[in-house]
């Protein structure tokens, strides 16, 4: 059509590339997608102009899926089938989330194959990986719409403190969404990249990242394009959602309500109300809340008291990171605040106290992570002078006799890394060896996270203590672990199959991929049809409006012909034949071309004549 060229907000077309690489911040409460060209990056806005997409997915009873604001609305109203904060469940088994149980508006069930739990929503079962994949698909589509080209590759951010299982689950989700993961990078590192390049920072910086559900602190050395992580620490079960829960509990007790008398819908509404109160208290010293026919006042002192335990927990984690990096707070040149929850005043005050300097809040804490990811995506695909040197957040080890953990790779070791450890047999003629890989800092295996178990077989029959088995741990640049083993005396390499304790079994992953490919075909056809309809309607509305305005340029016969074609196109748009709609839209464009040219001539004529001073004055008076 040659009537109007409409650009989507945030459109940044890249020339000479048929597909693009984006940066995605897959957050607990919100997700953001950004795109970079050169060292400049910007977030992509969806058709409603929002950059922040609520990380909420709604599964309707009829099988359709909603993502973002519509799903969040349902979640806030406590509707069954809406899944929020799924990031907290990534790579986790039922045992890990016991504390969350009861607060979730859906049923959680054990995976029959072991490992990650599944969620029961509106008559179907989904895994956290599938839910995350829906969010990623939505972001992919949003970016594709804005860019006008395919998006096939992405850098996705994860909390620095995510363990191996959660990282692997995130990568699986991306594959399901049809995205090749160029690299998983840590959220604080992404923030540092965006911040350092933006502000030209040099020296040691702390990135304090308090999101909806996770907390991370990273200490980085920034130096001439090198972003070196010195230490990272965090808590994957600590965030702004906890503040909401604390306020909600206060609301309930202050209004004399008992939580167990409420249905999930009512609880959802109270938590949503609590969130509003929290936002209000970021600007004001007290908030007045109308709830259940009562008027309640929550002031800063009381609010601070409610959230203090969570913030003190975060402060302890900061001290640990400093100790790990062998630094004191005085060595830190600046503290960059990331994540929406850093808007809470008490958080800013306590950070200032600990580090002795006012935290930096001049980058948008909601967008900086996605921007950093986009810069990295651009750097990885187009080349860059920057270098990110990251670390592994949690130690990796093996179970030894008596259920003890023997660390093989210590936390805060730079990645990629590869470490070999030798083991021997303890019985004469022992032919096999159980290997149990765990992650965590605790002494007892039972307190750490079980990552994988496998049996090394085929050890040649030798007296106890003679066979030498070398087990090699390799952690790649995404922070993901692979384990291999070989028996050294016989020289025979043993290829081993690692069955991840919390990852997806291979068959399950394949089935989900097949499902998603079938759905993807359906999704694309549907999307193209909707786009054709929207496009047709937009053209009709635009044409009708200019026909009213400049109708005198048209002869009656021309007008009739255009009106006839408008109704033909309207009819076509009612059907579901996309090619037919497109053809009739093209015909309308051809018929109106002459009209458009005449309008253009007139517009130029008016412009050349110029406006009279009288006219301008009259306008001003009007």
């Amino acid at each position, binding site marked *: 059509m040659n009537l109007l060229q409409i650009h989507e907000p945030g459109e940044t077309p890249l020339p000479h590339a048929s597909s693009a690489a984006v940066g995605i911040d897959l957050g607990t409460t919100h997700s953001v997608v950004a795109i970079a060209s050169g060292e400049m990056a910007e977030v992509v806005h969806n058709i409603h102009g929002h950059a922040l997409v609520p990380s909420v997915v709604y599964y309707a009873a009829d099988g359709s899926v909603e993502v973002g604001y519509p799903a969040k609305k349902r979640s806030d109203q406590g509707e069954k089938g809406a899944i929020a904060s799924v990031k907290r469940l990534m790579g986790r088994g039922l045992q890990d989330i016991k504390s969350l149980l009861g607060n979730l508006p859906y049923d959680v069930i054990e995976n029959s194959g072991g490992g990650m739990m599944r969620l029961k929503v509106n008559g179907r079962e989904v895994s956290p990986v599938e839910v995350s994949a829906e969010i990623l698909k939505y972001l992919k589509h949003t970016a594709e719409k804005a860019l006008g080209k395919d998006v096939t590759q992405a850098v996705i951010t994860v909390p620095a403190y995510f363990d191996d299982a959660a990282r692997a689950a995130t990568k699986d989700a991306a594959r399901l969404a049809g995205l090749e993961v*160029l*690299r998983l990078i840590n959220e604080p590192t992404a923030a540092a990249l965006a911040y350092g390049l933006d502000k030209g920072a040099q020296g040691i910086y702390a990135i304090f990242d308090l999101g909806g559900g996770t907390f991370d602190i990273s200490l980085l050395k920034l*130096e001439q394009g*090198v972003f*070196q992580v010195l230490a990272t620490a965090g808590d994957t079960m600590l965030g702004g959602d906890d503040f909401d829960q604390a306020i909600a509990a206060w609301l309930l007790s202050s209004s004399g309500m008992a939580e167990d008398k409420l249905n999930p819908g009512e609880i959802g509404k109270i938590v949503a109300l609590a969130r509003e109160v929290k936002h209000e208290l970021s600007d004001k010293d007290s908030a007045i809340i109308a709830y259940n026919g009562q008027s309640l006042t929550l002031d800063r002192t009381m609010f601070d008291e409610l959230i203090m335990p969570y913030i003190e927990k975060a402060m302890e984690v900061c001290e640990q990171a400093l100790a790990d990096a062998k630094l004191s707070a005085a060595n830190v040149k600046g503290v960059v605040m990331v994540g929406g929850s850093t808007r809470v005043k008490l958080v800013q005050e306590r950070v200032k106290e600990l580090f002795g300097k006012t935290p930096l809040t001049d980058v948008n804490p909601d967008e900086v992570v996605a921007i950093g990811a986009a810069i990295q995506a651009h*750097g*990885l*695909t187009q080349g860059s002078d920057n*270098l*990110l*040197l990251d670390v592994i957040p949690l130690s990796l080890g093996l179970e030894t006799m008596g259920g003890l953990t023997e660390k093989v790779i210590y936390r805060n*070791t*730079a*990645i*990629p*890394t*590869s*470490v*070999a450890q030798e083991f021997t047999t303890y019985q004469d003629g022992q032919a096999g060896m159980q290997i149990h890989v765990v992650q965590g800092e605790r002494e007892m295996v039972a307190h750490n996270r079980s990552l994988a178990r496998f049996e090394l077989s085929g050890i040649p029959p030798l007296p106890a203590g003679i066979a030498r088995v070398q087990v*090699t741990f*390799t952690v*790649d*640049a995404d922070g993901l672990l692979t384990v291999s083993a070989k028996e050294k005396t016989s020289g025979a390499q043993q290829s081993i199959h690692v069955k991840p304790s919390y990852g997806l079994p291979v068959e399950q992953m394949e089935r989900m991929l097949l499902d998603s490919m079938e759905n993807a075909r359906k999704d694309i056809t549907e999307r193209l049809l909707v786009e054709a309809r929207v496009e047709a309607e937009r053209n009709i509305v635009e044409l009708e409006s200019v026909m009213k305005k400049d109708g005198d340029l048209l002869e009656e016969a021309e007008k009739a012909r255009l009106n006839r074609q408008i109704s033909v196109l309207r009819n076509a748009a009612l059907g579901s034949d996309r090619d037919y709609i497109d053809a009739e839209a093209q015909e309308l464009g051809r018929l109106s071309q002459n009209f458009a040219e005449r309008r253009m001539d007139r517009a130029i004529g008016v412009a050349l004549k110029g406006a009279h001073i009288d006219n301008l004055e009259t306008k001003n008076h009007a």
Partner: protein
Amino acid sequence: MADFLEYFTLLDILPAFDLDLAALEESYFREQRNNHPDRFVNKPDAERLEAAQRSADINMAYDTLKDPLKRAQYLLLLQGMFVGTDRDNVKPSQELLTEIMELRESVAEIKHIDEWFALSDELDELHGKLLNYIDAAYTKRQWDKMAQLVLKLGYVQKTMEDLKKQKARLGKKAK
């Protein structure tokens, strides 16, 4: 996996105990710029894996060489002497064991924060001296002497860590 002979070569510096840490870091950054997996995203699999292994080796080399104790242990390893590993072939002398035992006792017996500071200063001084002795022994290629000194450095560092934990306890008592 890098053979343990390669760390200095990997970072392109000459073997020594007394290293310029700023220069070491510069070498580390330079080598990672050339070998980090981020530089090989669009390269063929074989090339990518090779670079990832090199990058891991460079990380290991830097991690070892930047720390005086690990660096000293590594220099001894190059002489076939295992110190601070699970298959040590160097044993501490009786004299050293006695000295360390006395040191640990004085840490355990601290009652007052003033004693803590005095001992902390004493250990810092001893630590600095040991580094100088180790450098001298390395330069003169006195391997047995160096091995004993490196063992002592390990014990002293362990004692310093224990002392740090003590401070938290003393601090809490004071309150």
